[in-house]
């Protein structure tokens, strides 16, 4: 299936303008195949931990991860109810189409 999401970049524009992402620690919940994660990585955060409950989508996201973002993005299978992190770890959390 050929489907292009947000070809005009309206979503990216809205997200970029909402906060200063540079150097921040981000948790993305519901990353799917990493479509939005890669756009967030372009805002130069320190680190993105990207979760999705579907291990198949996580495998796809890892496969599509460009070399330049390998240090910056970490994909993990997981869900919003049980984030396996200590308290007070992230500057920004984004619920990406999960609620």
């Amino acid at each position: 299936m050929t489907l292009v999401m947000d070809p005009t970049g309206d979503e990216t524009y809205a997200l970029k303008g909402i906060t200063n992402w540079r150097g921040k620690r981000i948790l993305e919940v519901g990353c799917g195949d990493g479509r939005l994660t890669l756009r967030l990585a372009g805002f130069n955060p320190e680190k993105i931990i990207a979760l999705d409950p579907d291990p198949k989508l996580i495998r796809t996201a890892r496969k599509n991860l460009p070399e330049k973002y390998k240090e910056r993005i970490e994909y993990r299978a997981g869900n919003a109810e049980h984030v396996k992190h200590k308290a007070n770890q992230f500057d920004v959390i984004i619920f990406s189409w999960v609620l």
Partner: protein
Amino acid sequence: MVHALTEAHRVLKPNGILMDLRPAAKHRRAGLGEGKHWKRVGVMRENFDDDIAADRAVKQVIRDDLFQQESLIEFDLDRVMDTLQDFHAWLDDFDVEKLPSHDWLYQKVERALEKKPAGTKIAVRGLMRLRVLKKIVDSID
């Protein structure tokens, strides 16, 4: 949903922000063409029960003083498809509870597409909502 928001509050740093990005509870519009040349053909008839429940959960954590709302932005998001088959596959991906059969819309788009030059794209335009919530510190314990 409230549990997920409470967990987000736990792992956020003090004054950290939570962004809730998802489609608004407004019917998507299917049309032909792209960008400024897009023209509406029909309006979808989705069920918004899940979206209404999610909005309630967000209101709940605001009432519970876990978060305060900083801003709310809405914008259109397009999904552009090359063929009618792509459009059909996209419609089929929905849960039937969320979206009853839309064969009528598929047929409407098919008829409209017949009158357009070859290569005309199908685009579904939907309103997105980006809500920004700021963690309220010392609200638990």
